[in-house]
């Protein structure tokens, strides 16, 4: 069946546009094939006139250094990129088809708006924040399952309700109460050491994007003083812990002199505190002011890093005087944008995602490594472990089995649950471990390891785990059963797995493979396997 109508399929796929050339019209199939010798499914030749201030600032650097930027990405590439970057989720075949067929004027902008309101937006970014805040029930953070899940839920709800970022941080820093009922207090529990200096280091890393172990000792001690009056106490409820402002704590004469330092902000200004005033409030006031030199830059740079794959200051949690800012004007613009939006992070997402800079193709025209630092093309990155697990399950319709080392009722996770919405770093699967999910030990961005390894390749190419997903996939079975014409099966598998139509070359390869006396079912399984193992599936691009 697959063999008979492949020829029809070629015409059909080209007729659907996109794959052959974004400018090809369904009525001129032959012309399109004749005039576009090497159609790229990945880019378009659209003009690169700056669309917005981001583009102006980025393109100015191209001019200054003679960098030739990449072309703009095609609709199909943009679609997949936006879904993966914004909601950590693949488009469904229907979503892909609708977007590719849409002839509206600003369909990319409209897609961005839709993605920003999806529940998966909160799922994906709650997962990211749970990495940075170390939301983990067990070793070495030891939040306990119920507290980890309450904390995750609080983060999720904060993102879903578009809580302004400055308020989000303030609520974390000034939290008091029960780890179960006032989940933000878990900020002060989710660290291996809970002495004032370690807390100050965690605050500096998370919200100032800086590694305070490189600071002068006195600076860190001055900041630690703001966190020296935090009390922890147990209650009669199993594993409940109350975190609270404890004004008597200094009177208890901490033996470590470092923590007896006077409270001084990291910029060197001394703070005035009254005895009954929680110093964390004073610190939060200082930190979240728009004029604070660290706060807004750190988050603006982080958001840029998350979307573009490289910080304007890189790495995004290693901001210091001798770590270069590749495009200071750009960072300044993003900060202003965020301040004007009253710290609504979605606005920052919006302006970045709508820029041509973000929408450049991944195919570099300038081979110099320095060009990467100026964002001359989109950086190819392997999918995050959780996103990859979900993508595999989404295209195959198969479940995942999750376990936790603590067999508490809270840690049993239904198989249908997506990995990006796991509420606790102690709940996982061997797949997530293998693909470099962060252990949530330190909150460093670099904990997430997306470098490909040979054992990951082995797993994807040849493990029973992945083989079973493909062989037993109800979705692939459905396609095999219901494809009336064999070309349909190929087109559907491409839309399902790669969110685009096959190119003529790909049609030829499938035709050749299916002629070699292989059964239709095997062709479909081999095709699904090959597409899942292709770089296009495994990498953001």
């Amino acid at each position, binding site marked *: 069946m697959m063999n008979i109508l492949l020829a029809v399929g070629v015409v059909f796929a080209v007729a659907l546009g996109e794959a052959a050339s974004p400018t090809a019209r369904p009525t001129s199939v032959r012309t399109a094939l004749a005039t576009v010798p090497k159609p790229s499914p990945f880019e378009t030749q659209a003009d690169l006139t700056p669309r917005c201030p981001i583009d102006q600032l980025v393109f100015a650097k191209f001019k200054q250094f003679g960098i030739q930027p990449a072309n703009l990405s095609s609709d199909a590439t943009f679609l997949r990129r936006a879904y993966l970057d914004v909601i950590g989720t693949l488009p469904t075949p229907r979503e892909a088809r609708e977007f590719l067929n849409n002839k509206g004027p600003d369909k990319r902008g409209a897609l961005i708006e839709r993605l920003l309101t999806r529940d998966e937006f909160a799922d994906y970014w709650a997962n990211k924040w749970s990495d940075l805040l170390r939301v983990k029930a067990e070793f070495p953070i030891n939040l306990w399952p119920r507290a980890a899940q309450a904390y995750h839920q609080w983060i999720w709800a904060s993102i879903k309700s578009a809580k302004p970022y400055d308020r989000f941080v303030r609520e974390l820093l000034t939290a008091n109460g029960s780890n179960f009922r006032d989940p933000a207090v878990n900020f002060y529990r989710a660290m291996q050491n809970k002495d004032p200096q370690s807390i100050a280091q965690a605050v500096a890393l998370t919200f100032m994007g800086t590694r305070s172990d490189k600071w002068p000792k006195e600076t860190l001690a001055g900041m630690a003083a703001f966190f020296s009056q935090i009390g922890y106490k147990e209650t009669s409820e199993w594993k409940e812990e109350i975190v609270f402002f404890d004004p008597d704590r200094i009177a208890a004469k901490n033996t470590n002199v470092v923590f007896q330092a006077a409270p001084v902000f990291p910029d060197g200004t001394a703070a005035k505190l009254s005895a009954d005033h929680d110093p964390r409030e004073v610190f939060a006031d200082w930190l979240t002011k728009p004029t604070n030199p660290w706060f807004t830059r750190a988050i603006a740079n982080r958001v840029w890093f998350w979307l573009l794959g490289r910080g304007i200051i890189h790495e995004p949690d290693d901001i210091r005087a001798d770590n270069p800012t590749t495009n200071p004007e750009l960072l300044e613009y993003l900060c202003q944008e965020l301040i004007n939006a009253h710290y609504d992070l979605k606005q920052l997402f919006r302006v970045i995602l709508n820029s041509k800079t973000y929408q450049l193709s991944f195919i570099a025209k300038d081979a110099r490594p320095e060009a990467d630092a100026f964002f001359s093309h989109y950086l190819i990155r392997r999918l995050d472990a959780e996103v990859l697990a979900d993508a595999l399950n989404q295209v195959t319709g198969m479940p995942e089995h999750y376990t936790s080392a603590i067999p508490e009722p809270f840690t049993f996770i239904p198989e249908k649950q997506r990995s990006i919405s796991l509420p606790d770093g102690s709940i996982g699967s061997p797949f997530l471990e293998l693909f470099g999910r962060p252990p949530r030990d330190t909150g460093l961005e670099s904990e997430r*390891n997306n470098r490909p390894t040979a054992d990951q390749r082995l797993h994807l190419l040849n*493990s029973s785990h992945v083989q079973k997903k493909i062989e037993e996939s109800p979705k692939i079975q459905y396609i095999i059963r219901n494809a009336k014409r064999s070309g349909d099966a190929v087109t559907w598998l491409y839309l399902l797995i790669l969110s685009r139509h096959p190119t003529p070359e790909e049609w030829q390869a499938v035709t050749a493979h299916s002629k070699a006396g292989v059964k239709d079912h095997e062709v479909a399984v081999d095709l699904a396997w090959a597409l899942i193992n292709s770089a296009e599936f495994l990498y953001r691009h």
Partner: protein
Amino acid sequence: MKTQPSFTNKWLDRMRENAITRREAVQRAMLGAAGLWLGDHLGLSAFAAPQAPKARARSVIQIWMWGGPAHLDTWDPKPDAGYDYYGAFKTPIATNVDGLRVNELMPLLAKQADKYAVIHSMTHGVNAHETASYLVQTARQQGGRDVYPSAGAVVSLFKGYSGGYRGLLPPYIVLTEPQGRFSEAGFLGSRFKPFSTGGDPGAQRFAVEGIVASGISDKRQQDRRNFLHQLNTLKHAAPNDPQMLAADQTEKQAYDLILGDAGKVFDLSTEKNELRDRYGRNTFGQSCLVARKLVERGVPYVTINYKSGTWDTHKQNFQTMRRRLPEMDKGVATLLQDLADRGLLDSTIVWWCGEFGRTPKVQWEAPWNGGRGHWGNVFSAMVAGGGFKGGRVVGASDAKGEEVKDRPVHPADLIGTMYELLGIDCKARLPHPTGELATVVPTSSDDVKLGGRLTEIV
């Protein structure tokens, strides 16, 4: 392309110094053909120590007694401590070494005692599984911001691809599941995690995840691979992207294992039936056999994660030990003999240990019904081969096995001794992600208790 002005900013120079550049990534990818995990490890050789001691051992087989078996019911029986202590095991048996007696259910190991040393005075005082597992395998106290790498990750750093290993098999392999309770690689990052085989060596066919696929012929593998190459359109569009080069390399090496000879090491049907029977036809026994085959191929570190049935005997300790000890006895005793027969014992350290021991005083009451709890104050470990002297006993516990009586041995003492036998300098620096000072083994300034290296048995 226009002529390009050069990048001259001073920060760009710094960037060049700090970052892995595209060119470098390309070079790394090109160099990587020699070994499976090699590409990731280049550049770390700077961390290899200049003053490394001379290596006597090449490999380690770690038998990880997950859950913490009772020292009183294995290497340190206390028949004189009373029924509440020895419980069901009143009659320890003599070994072929004077003065060392072991549990009556370990007759085969009793005959191998000249090959191993028993440490009766392991101690760390921690009674929680995960913290104790971490401590025993990293030699570090929990706390601080860092999570340290386990011994396996450290050995694969120094003895793996940057230490001269050139095999296709990964340098750190765990049979059959990772421990999961702590990140074995610690701050070294996930590329130092062990390769976990999955599958069951005790089954008809040991289906090592990713290497041995069921129902796919070599021809179909090859056809599929060609098909994938034709359809890898993105890779063809950006062939010189560093990510794509790295992907190429990992794929090539994965196929070397799938289709090449290296993966055949997991085929146990090539071993004599008689030998397989001696190891025991069960997951643990056959894991011991696989471990021998792996070190024979030069793999530096193999962990047998002995989880099945669990040694965490809170309830009905004695029934569990009756079921499990004969299996353990057979597997480990045969492993020692087999390694010795093949001349591998001199270059292979066998390290048998759990995260702690168990309460010497039996908990007879319900719900434990003759159970033993966690006990970190004193417990036993066994080491053999690779430069460790056999037929020795280190230290002693007190009359009831509750405390160390003589010569405390802390995890850092044991791990440090192993590293030295492997030729690893304990004072060398580990590559820390933010450049902090982290030595291979904690020193006295690290606030870790030390009893001194095990010079008496090397």
